[in-house]
C-alpha cells in the first residue's frame, strides 16, 4: 500500500513533447485510471512510474520516497502488459515465480506464494502449461498472477484488456475489481476505453496531448466535465455540441461559444421549462433493445439522441429537440467549461 506522487513530470522524445507537465497524486489503495485517446501520453506516464522510461524533468515518488533514480525492480511495482508479455518458454509456474527467484526468495516460499496466488485467480491447473497453450483470458490471469505474487506496493496496468473479446473483457473487469478489493493495493490503470475507466476507477484522470485535463470520481467527471474534451470523451454516445447560437433564447454565461448536451437529455416535446434548441430530420434510428440511438440532422449539424425504444420517431420524420436548460453545458472558445447557469 503506497501513495504515488507525480510532480511536474515532462517527457520529450527528441523535439517531441509527449508529457507536458503532469501533477498527480494517487492515494494509498486507490484505483486510478488514466484514460485518453491513443497517443495522448498515458502509457508513457505509466512507464515513467514503472521506471521503464525516464522523465525529462519532474519527480516520481512512491510512499513518500523520490524514486527517480531507482530501477523498476527497486520501486516495488508490478506491471501487467497489453500483450501479457509472458515468457514463452517458461511454464506458468515459472513465469509467476521468476521475479521471486530473482529476488532470492527461497524455493518453498516461492512455491507457497505461487500456489496461493494461483488459487485466488483459479489458475492452479494451468501451472504446468506454457503460455502458448493458454487462451487469451487465461494468459491475462497469469499475467495478473505474475504481478500479484510479488505483493507489490503499486500495480500498473497498461491496457490489459484490449486484446480480449468483448465478453471476456467484461468478465476480466470484474476480476480486476476483485483483485483490487482483496489486495487493497494501489492501482494505476491505463486504458483508452472510457467504459472500462468508468466501471473500474475510484478516480479517473483524463489525459489529452500530454496533459491531464481533469481528475475526479467517474460520476463527477461525467456530470461536471471541466473541458469540452472531457465532456466529449466521457459518455457514450458522446456529448452533442452546437454553436451557442442554437440557444439564442437563453441568456448564456459570458464567453460561451458552444453548448453541449448529452444524448439522453434530448426530448421531443415542450414540458416543464424545457427550451427548444432546434428542429431537424431523423436520418437514422439504431435500435439497441430497450433504447434506441436517434440521429437527427439540423442543417449542417448532427445530433445523436438516446431515447426509449417506444418514443423513438421513425426515420425521415421531422422532430423538435427540447432540453431542460439545467442539463446544458457551456464552453468558451478554448474549450473550458463555463460554470454559470443559463437563464431563460
Amino acid at each position, binding site marked *: 500500500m503506497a501513495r504515488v506522487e507525480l510532480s511536474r513530470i515532462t517527457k520529450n522524445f527528441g523535439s517531441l513533447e509527449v508529457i507536458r507537465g503532469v501533477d498527480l497524486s494517487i492515494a494509498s489503495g486507490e484505483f486510478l485510471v488514466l484514460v485518453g485517446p491513443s497517443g495522448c501520453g498515458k502509457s508513457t506516464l505509466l*512507464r515513467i512510474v*514503472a521506471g*521503464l522510461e525516464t522523465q525529462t524533468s519532474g519527480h516520481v515518488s512512491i510512499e513518500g520516497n523520490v524514486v527517480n533514480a531507482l*530501477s*523498476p*525492480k527497486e520501486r516495488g*511495482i*508490478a*506491471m501487467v*502488459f*497489453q*500483450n501479457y*508479455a*509472458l*515468457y*514463452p*518458454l517458461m511454464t506458468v509456474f515459472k513465469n509467476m515465480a*521468476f*521475479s521471486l527467484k*530473482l*529476488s532470492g526468495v527461497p524455493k518453498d516460499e516461492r512455491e507457497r506464494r505461487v500456489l496461493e496466488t494461483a488459487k485466488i485467480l483459479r489458475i492452479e491447473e494451468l501451472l504446468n502449461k506454457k503460455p502458448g497453450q493458454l487462451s487469451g483470458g487465461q494468459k491475462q490471469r497469469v499475467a495478473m498472477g*505474475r504481478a500479484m505474487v*510479488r505483493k507489490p506496493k503499486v500495480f500498473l496496468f497498461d491496457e490489459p484488456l484490449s486484446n480480449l473479446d468483448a465478453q471476456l473483457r467484461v468478465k476480466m473487469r470484474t476480476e480486476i475489481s476483485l483483485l483490487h478489493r482483496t489486495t487493497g493495493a494501489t492501482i494505476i490503470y491505463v486504458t483508452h476505453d472510457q467504459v472500462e475507466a468508468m466501471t473500474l476507477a475510484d478516480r479517473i484522470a483524463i489525459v489529452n496531448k500530454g496533459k491531464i485535463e481533469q481528475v475526479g470520481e467517474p460520476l463527477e467527471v461525467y456530470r461536471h466535465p471541466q473541458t469540452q474534451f472531457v465532456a466529449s470523451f466521457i459518455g457514450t454516445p458522446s456529448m452533442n455540441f452546437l454553436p451557442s447560437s442554437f440557444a439564442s433564447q437563453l441568456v448564456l454565461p459570458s464567453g460561451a461559444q458552444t453548448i453541449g448536451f448529452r444524448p439522453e437529455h434530448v426530448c421531443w416535446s415542450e414540458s416543464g421549462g424545457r427550451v427548444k434548441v432546434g428542429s431537424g430530420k431523423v436520418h437514422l434510428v439504431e435500435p439497441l433493445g430497450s433504447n434506441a440511438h436517434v440521429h437527427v440532422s439540423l442543417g449542417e449539424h448532427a445530433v445523436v439522441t438516446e431515447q426509449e425504444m417506444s418514443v423513438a420517431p421513425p426515420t425521415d420524420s421531422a422532430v423538435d429537440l427540447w432540453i431542460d436548460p439545467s442539463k446544458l453545458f457551456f464552453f468558451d472558445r478554448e474549450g473550458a467549461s463555463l460554470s454559470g447557469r443559463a437563464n431563460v
Partner: protein
Amino acid sequence: MDDTVSLPGKRVGEMVGAIPTVSWSRILSNKRLWVTLFLLIPALAQIFPMVYMISMSFKEGVEVFSYPPTVMPKSLQLGNYQAALEAAPIGRFLFNSMVAALSITLLQIFTAILAAYALARIEFRGKRILFVLILGTMMVPGEITIIPNYLTLARWGWIDTYQALVVPFAASGFGVFLLYQFFRTVPKELEEAAIVDGASRLRFLFQIMVPLALPAIIAFGVYAFVSAWNQYLWPLVVTQSTDMQTAQIGLGMFRAENESNSWGVIMAATSMLIAPSLLLFLVTQRQFVRGITMSGLKG
C-alpha cells in the same frame, strides 16, 4: 510448407482409373513417373562419386585397376584403412578440424549474440555506423584479408597454432545480422516485463531471448560449423606441421604422394575424412538447409 499437389485436375481421374485395372499405357503416360525417372540420372551422378569412393576404399591391390572398373568390391577389405591410418595421422587431422570448427562456431555464436542484442535492443550514439560497418564486413572476401592476416599472425608467432585457425574467425558479420533480425521480432514488452521482474539485461538475454532464438542460433551454428570445417585457403597458409593440419589440408598429403599410395588407400583416407561432414549433414539436414537459405552467401 505447403506440399499441395500441383496438378489437381488430373490426379483424381488417374487414381480412379488406376485402381480397378492395371493399364500399362496409363502408367507410361503418368507424368510423375517420367519426372522421377528423369531425376534419377542427375541424382545418381550426384552420389556416384561417393559410392565409388567407398567401394574403392575396400578394394585391394590389383582389383583397383581391374578393367572394366567394378562398382562392387569382391570382398570388404579393411587393409586400405589400416594403411591410410599408418600413412598419415588421420585422427589428428580430424581432431584439429573438430577443434577449429567447434571453437569458431561457439565463438561466433557467442560474439554474435552479444553484438546482435546491443544493436537490436539498445539505443546509443554511433549505432547506425557500427551496424553498417559490421554488415559491411560480409562484403569483404577472405582473399583480400589473407596476406595482412598472415603477416599479423606471423608477427605474433601464431603460425601453426590453433589460435591462428580460430581467432580470425571468432566473430561473424553474418551471424550478427541474422540474430539481429531475429531479436528484433521479440516483443519489447517481454524485456520490460523481465526488467520489472528484476532481471538484468544480460539475464534477460541469456535466460529468455537466447532460448527463444535457439532455432535460428542452431541453424546459424550448423552453417558456421560447416563453413569452418570446409575452409581450405586459410588453413593451408597458416598450418605447417603435419600435426596442425586440418582434414582438408591433410588430405592433400595423399594427393601429393599419390605415386606411393594406392588409390584404395587414398579413397580409404578420403572416406574417413569425409565421413564427419556427411554424418553431420544427415543428422542436421533441416537446420543445414535453413542455414544455407538464410545465408544465401557462401557455400
